[in-house]
């Protein structure tokens, strides 16, 4: 699948901002079935400094400083990428979840790919007894790790309502879990907390979902914004699972960054020297190149 992506982030400030410093994670990831063809970012006003790095988890980051006083700040990222993933493995295969848990505790090494980075509580994902208990039904003794994670994903999709009004970016996990509503970020954090509560590694993945479904299929939730899902270590490899839509990650998903939770992969994070109200507009467009459709305004 060949995609053309556009991710536009625009801030407007009531009072002029004299200095901004931010970190972008907007470049689609390479590898694991993804071949980026092009990527460019246009920032207004033009930054005084821009430093490209790769963070601990291998995500590409750009750090900017803007010293021109401004009331509007926009980041326009455009990419082209080819996505061809192998077919998803059968959830019924793979080791039992208890074996996976034991494997992680004795894992040798701290390299960025090691699943042990994703097994502990993190900034946005505390471990809560009620969420761990919710997870237990999917993991009977001796059950497969992959099968359990797949079942957990389906239960979250069934039990929780997609509601973009119910939560915001800073809503605590306990609240979205108790309310049984939220958006992709909440569902992903809940699923991650559930898996980690039992000692299983789970990563948070940020990315995109194709905007319009193939003919005859329903439009998926989260397609008009940046999307998030979960990557689960099942003992032999990482499996992408999307609890918002209850599906495995295949060629409709485009991975940008992965980390322990949202705090590790926020597409735009930063600090401004200024005060007063700010407003934010985000527009995302993911269009298969073979079937061109009009972009955002």
């Amino acid at each position, binding site marked *: 699948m060949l995609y053309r992506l556009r991710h536009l*982030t625009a*801030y407007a400030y009531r009072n002029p901002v*004299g*200095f*901004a*410093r*931010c*970190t972008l994670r907007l470049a689609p990831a390479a590898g694991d079935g993804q071949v980026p063809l092009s990527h460019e970012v246009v920032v207004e006003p033009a930054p005084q400094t821009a*430093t490209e790095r790769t*963070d*601990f*988890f291998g995500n590409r980051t750009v*750090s900017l*400083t803007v010293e021109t006083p401004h009331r509007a700040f926009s980041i326009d990222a455009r990419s082209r990428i080819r996505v061809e993933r192998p077919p998803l493995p059968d959830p019924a295969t793979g080791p039992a979840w208890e074996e996976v848990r*034991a494997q*992680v*505790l*004795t*894992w*040798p*090494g*701290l*390299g960025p790919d*090691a699943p*042990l*980075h994703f*097994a*502990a*509580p993190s*900034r946005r994902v505390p*471990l809560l007894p009620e969420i761990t208990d919710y997870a237990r039904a999917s993991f009977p003794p001796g059950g497969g790790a992959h099968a359990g994670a797949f079942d957990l994903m389906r239960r979250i999709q069934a039990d929780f309502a997609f509601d973009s009004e119910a939560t*915001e*970016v*800073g809503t605590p996990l306990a609240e979205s879990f108790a309310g049984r509503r939220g*958006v*992709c*970020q909440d569902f992903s954090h809940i699923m991650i907390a559930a898996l980690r*509560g*039992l*000692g299983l590694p789970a990563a948070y993945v*940020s990315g995109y979902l194709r905007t319009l479904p193939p003919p005859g299929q329903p439009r998926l939730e989260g397609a008009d*914004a*940046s*999307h*998030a899902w979960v990557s689960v270590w099942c003992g032999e490899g990482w499996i992408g699972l999307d609890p918002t839509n209850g599906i495995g990650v295949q060629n409709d998903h485009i991975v940008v960054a992965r980390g322990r939770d*949202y*705090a590790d992969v*926020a*597409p*735009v*994070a*930063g*600090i*401004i*020297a*200024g*005060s007063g109200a*700010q407003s*934010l507009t*985000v527009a995302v467009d993911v269009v298969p190149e073979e079937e061109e459709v009009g972009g955002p305004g």
Partner: protein
Amino acid sequence: MSEALAEADIPAPPPREDRPREDGPEERLARWTAGYAALPGLPDELVTPDGRLRPAWDRFLRHLADLTDGEIAARLAAAGRHIHETGIAYRAYGEATERDWPIGALPLLIEGAEWQVIAAGVAQRAELLEAVLTDLYGDGALARAGLLPAAAAAGDPEFLRPLVGVSPPGGRHLHFYAADLARGPDGAWRVLADRTQAPSGAGHALENRLVMARALPEVYGALDVERVASFFQAFRDGLAAAATRAEPRIGLMTSGPYSDTYVEQAVLARYLGFSLVEGDDLLVRDGMVSIRTVAGLKRVDVLWRRIDGDFVDPLELNAASRLGAPGLVEALRSGAVAMGNMPGTGLVESGWLAASLPALCERLLGEPLRLPGLPTWWCGDPAQRDAVMQRFDALAFRPAAAPAQGAFTSRAFGEGRDAAETARLRAVLRDRPGDLVAHEPVRLSTAPVWDGTRLVPRPFVLRVFAAATPEGWQVMPGGFCRISETPDVRPVAMGAGVRAADVWVLSPDSTAAQASLLPPSDRVAVRRVPGLLPSRAADNLFWLGRHLERAEAVIRLTTCLLDGAGSVSMAAEDLATSARLRALLHLWGAAPSPKGGAAELAHHALSDGSQWGSALSHALSARRNAAALRERLSGEAWRALSALREVLEAPADGTDSEAALLDRAERALSLTAALAGLAQENMNRAGGFAFVDMGRRVERAVNACRFALDFGGAGASTDDLGVLLDLVDSRISYGARYILGVALAPVRDMVLLDPFNPRSLAFQVACLGERLAVLPSLRQDGVAELPVRLVAGLSGEIAAAEAATLPLDTVAAWEMRLWEIAEAIGARYFPGGSDAARPEPLTTLA
């Protein structure tokens, strides 16, 4: 005044009835130690297991016994009072007010030979932990080789991933390390906890030493106690060596006035000559880290970090941090600034590392671990977990990665757990065993505490400090000892009542160099220009002056109101004067209404904390400003500020007669005068003093205008003019100069235009000009800066005015000009001091 107050505080000597017990030195010594017995099975500092006095304590007590019980009590009380007065207080978490750090214990004595063992062990641990950090934030070979539990390290919140791969500027992660020690059951010292995050307590050690050397000079002098001053010099040299510039500027990055160790940080900054900086004082820009100062941006080379590593940079680390400076991690990455300790060093405080340390020491240093820790097991390892489960009931548990809590607060998983806690513990051991470590229960060893008539054994924890210097790790010959006030030897009990004790290391040979507390003269160059004045500090100083002056003005208004109410005359013009006083108090937010009885109004104006403009509110604001300036304020100033608050607070029984109110008002005025005098006498002219004084002068000038407008109009009565003279405290000067009683033009001249009256507007503006003249200019072209130009303009107008023909409109315009001057001073010297440019997080939605 202060001398008299201080004398009055000394506790009365013991009553004469005690006289028969004031026996001779030999009898005293026998009485103190009679019946002293170590607690069963626990080593003790005073006596050996077979009950004999240890030689060091024997020597110490023989010298101490030259003093009577009463003399010792008085000296220890004086030591405690010094601690109180210099403000070595601490704040327990969640408490708004500070508590005194209790001292009053005898020093802990350690023989030189024994100290060598401790010092070598502490230095070795520091070196070992540095090596472990270098690996964990570098190549990661130890984890790959299975020498430490990778899963525990990866799950530790102190494993700060943005620092992985960053080579620390200056070549090391750790610059300052502390270890908490106690004796094990076999009498050998062992480590209860490693402190690598941002160890606190060295400032207490420093103050305790100064106090105890003063309290017991004969004993201190006779015992050849190792000095600690050179340790601090070595620490400073070590930090300086991490910089790339020859004369580096070092900042102490503080956790701020609301943290429990702020005063200790202020003590250390003052002693070491570091700038005390908060995150807001720092700016990362153009590949450089700078302090915002009144003289512009000044590059800082090294930061001694006293905030948790995760909080240093809201951009790359904890986005919720309000203490850090965005971009600091990038500055560390590029080598623009060095930091001691590097962010992320808290990682090796965690319990999961303890079980691996002996093997790591052999592997990394090629020698056995000299100072053991507690026997500890990481429950994530299957073999260790099996061993733990066999002794489940006998062991204590704690989180594997809870560096901040350490061994002292994990009551729930510790000893004496109940059924519910046991069930929780077993659930964690099943689902997430890697989150726990188990260790042998700790029983603290004891040291003697003097209870007034004899010695009793009390559990203690000794904190020992080590600094990385160009010559390797150096260990402070001394330390910070906390002694429990109860005989409960479980570590959890240390949270309740503890006292601080000095630690005396006795020189192995009496000819040891008795280095002066002063550094050798060749190390300190003469420097008249004061150190940096950060903009935030200048802002606080300015507002300290303004709040004090506002408090004073409210008190003077109140006094005038009460004086008027007390006079017998009820003439209409008296009532008009009183109404003007009331209206002004109401306008200034000191009273809820201009109506009501004089006493009622006066009570609000002086003591009503819910009125934002009351004298008490201003005094509290001044105290808040002062609290953020502790490293710049003398003990006397702090004490006077506390006294001002106490005087202004209403009596607890609610009675507040006019006479009592007047008395309190007068006492408060002498305190504000004392504070002004202290600033005048003790503060650096080109530094702090200029800002406190400008704050006062601006307010006093504004008040002179305001009072002249309200009480010095064309139709002003004799009463009005009398009040006006009182408000500017000039009635005596006026009486000395004019024999014929009050008249409008002379009063106006004295209040506004007379450059020789220290209370006049003209005098305040002249002072503002003088203060501004010694402050640094940022302009390269030699043109005066805006505040200077505004003051010069106003000064000229005042000089050209004449009292008899002065229109009130002009006075009103001058008042506005003064507000402009205050704004201009703020904009020039502390633009970031207000909230105007506080960094705000960018929000973004998924």
